[in-house]
């Protein structure tokens, strides 16, 4: 067998191993209940509770925004986001949070919102990061 063929096989093996490892790095879409049990960073999908007050007061703290959200199981939880309030979150129809549970509060590091577009029936997705990427 040629050297190049041996190396080719070796590299394909490495590639397959790599793809398996990638899947251990991947995450799951989860709920607040699960977040409470696991205490690790994960995604939570849900909707904003529009009846409760969204709290953002940049004068006292420009980096704190809190609101209440229902996950897809209907569990409500307070969410605290270290960053400025994403504009138009009131209009969002779906929110994907990245973060973890801390006591009874979910600390979000990223908010991905899906808002109905004003002019057409397609949704617009917006992503807001809590902090820069170097954290």
């Amino acid at each position, binding site marked *: 067998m040629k050297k*190049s063929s041996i190396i080719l096989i070796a590299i394909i093996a490495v590639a397959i191993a790599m793809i398996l490892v*990638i899947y251990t790095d991947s995450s799951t879409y989860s709920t607040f209940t699960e977040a409470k049990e696991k205490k690790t960073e994960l995604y939570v999908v849900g909707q904003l509770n529009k009846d409760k007050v969204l709290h953002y007061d940049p004068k*006292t703290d420009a980096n704190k925004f809190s609101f209440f959200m229902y996950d897809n199981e209907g569990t409500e939880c307070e969410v605290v986001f270290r960053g400025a309030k994403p504009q138009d979150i009131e209009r969002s129809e779906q929110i994907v949070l990245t973060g973890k549970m801390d006591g009874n509060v979910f600390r979000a590091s990223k908010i991905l919102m899906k808002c109905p*577009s004003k002019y057409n029936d397609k949704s617009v*997705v917006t992503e807001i990061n809590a902090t820069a*990427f170097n954290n």
Partner: protein
Amino acid sequence: MDVNYVGEHLLPGQIGQFFIVLSFGAALLSCIAYFFATKNPEETSWKKIARIGFWVNAVSVVAVGATLFYIIYNHFFEYNYAFAHSSRDLPTYYIISSFWEGQEGSFWLWMFWQTVLGAILLFKAKSWETSVMTFVMLCQAFLASMIIGVELLGLRIGSSPFILLRDAMDFPILKQANYLSLIKDGNGLNPLLQNYWMVIHPPTLFLGFASMIVPFAYATGALWTKRYKEWISAALPWALFAVMILGAGIIMGSFWAYEALNFGGFWAWDPVENASIIPWFTLIAAVHVMIAYKNSGHSYFTATFLAMISFVLVIYASYLTRSGVLGETSVHSFTDLGMSGQLILFNVAFLVIMVVFLVIKKKEMPITEKDEEIYSREFWMFIGALVLTVACAQIIASTSIPVFNKIFGTKVAPPLEPIQHYNKWQSGFAVIVMIMTGFTQFLKYKRSDSRKFLASTVASLAVAIILTAIISYFTKTYTNLIYILITFASIFCILANIRVLGDAVKGKWKLAGSSVAHIGFGLLLIGAMVAAATNEVISVNNTGYIAVSGFDKVEKPGENLFLTEGEPVQMGEYKITYIGDSIAAPNTYYKIKYERVDEETGKVKEQFVLQPFAQNNAKMGGLIGTPATKHYITHDVYTLITAAAAESQAQHSKTANEEKTGFEDYEEPATYQVNIGDTLRYRNGYYVIEGLNKEAQLEKIPKGPNDVMVGLKIKVVAADNKQYEVQPIYLIKDGGIYDFNKDVTDQGLKFRFTGIKPDKDKLEIMVYQKPLPEKKWVVFKAIKFPYINFFWCGTIIMTIGFIMSIVRRNKEEKRKLAK
């Protein structure tokens, strides 16, 4: 039901639609004719038909573009495309950008470039024309079908840019005959795209994508017509061109992201970015193995496979970004037009062509049975290409998670920290690839002297280690092993290539292109690594942070800083002041003054004003910030507005409108017991109680015989000596006590005459004052990016290297043909 719609311009749309259909038909005809022309080279009539088809297609494509431009330029909002992607106030040069905000326009752009490339092939490809153009025109027909917008057997094929608004949307208002008079303006262009980089980034990127069909078509055409060996040198200049343009397009996108987007960086491993870099990786690998084959006869299959898969991956990339499959994972993919079936078909068609040719012709391929020498350049070029392919496989695997979810019905979420996830893998690959790119320079094709090789390598390694130590020290990246390794590998690669360049100066000029490109890539990598690893948020908010209740203690201080107009704040080495703003609709520019003050003398050493701007855009969901950046040679200071006063004030007034009492705009009132002649102060001046007016009258309320109606004359004197007279009224009517307040709107004052106290000989008044107008404020974020200029600089050098290589390979091919 027929309605006579008023004011529509239907002719341009019909012309445009006609040319779309014509372009599809002509492309298909040309493809078929080229197919038969390749099969029967003696019969020249096939080639003639094919060429006519090509030119009809070319004219149609240009006509479609011109019509679409005419529609957008003249604001014919009866067309959905013009309505959705432009508005009246859009400057002409951004009309060009609105072309590629939508999928239809960007498909057109792809078609247009393919037409240009096709025209060049028509004149230059000579004996390759028929076989190569068969595949180019097949792709052209597929692209035309994406914008054809017709229904066939209940299936909608493509999405036409000439569809009317009233057909595209289902709003009752659009059923009225005069609906056009109700549409004042279009939806406008996404503010993020209103940037000069967006005028040139998409055309460059699409030229890169489009030109990748050429190596594919050469490789496939070669297998088809059994001209196995020839295609490599013929397609090499094209492959280099595609790699150069796509590379430049990707970096332009990255520069746009850095200059105009608000995610605070130049590369975020967003699926859309990944989609464009995937084919770049494989084609880079292809270029290297193609050169290796040309010089040694090894790696034929790999070269052919990589050239072909690159274009299949281009189509896969457009499936990822256009089908809506990325939906939840990417911010800036296109919206779904319901064409994923068609895109999959496009993808599968070219994949099948590739697989069929590779399998059927495998036995006839010129594959050598000889074993490669370890001390040979081609061997390591081959290994390097494989490593690049594996690196690419990692990006494909991670980016395709939503696709796998769709296929297998799973619900796997992508990695939580995508940047760390990709960086972890790609930095490892980068180190391996760069070290190989370095030492391979010391090897010769076929067989090299191992002693000489080791001597040169060790010498370069030693110098690289010293330089790495110095650079790591100055860029402060010595804390992390992988950073050091990347720096070392890149430096080693640069040094090795400088040596080759040194030889080039002595006369071997033809090798210069690749070494310049390698040096550029090495610099790019160091710049990207240092900027990404050591960028720091300098707008760290320490104040106001402690004041926040208990549970925030565990977290680091926020990265947004609150600035009130005119009040300087110290931020690191800078004193920053928000000095005001100016409006250039639709943007508001916020002036942030930066000053560096000498601590001892108090002198201002340096000062500059950055003007990040923001646009309040309903379509994008509120305030969209665009950063402003101060460029230094060694670092950049990047500033972005994340919230501003106008926004919150607008929200305040909204709530006030709901239940208005007339007093909520005022502060808590003050009550005074006064006598005639008293003078009292208020915030902006004073007022004098001048006297009572017993003759006071009120409209609508007649004075009864037992009623008391007294006015109190008050003179207000403001600080600027302006005088105002007011007369609040006190009324006792039918035993009830009332009072009627009076305002001095200019001064934000409201007076009530609330009582007469004869026992104390006093009059009682209540004074309401409006709070001082709220000071303007902004919330902003500033990031320092060190050594990012290496990144841009490396890109430019790399592009120059590619140009040199293209010139060289093109000359070689011409010389060969001349023989």
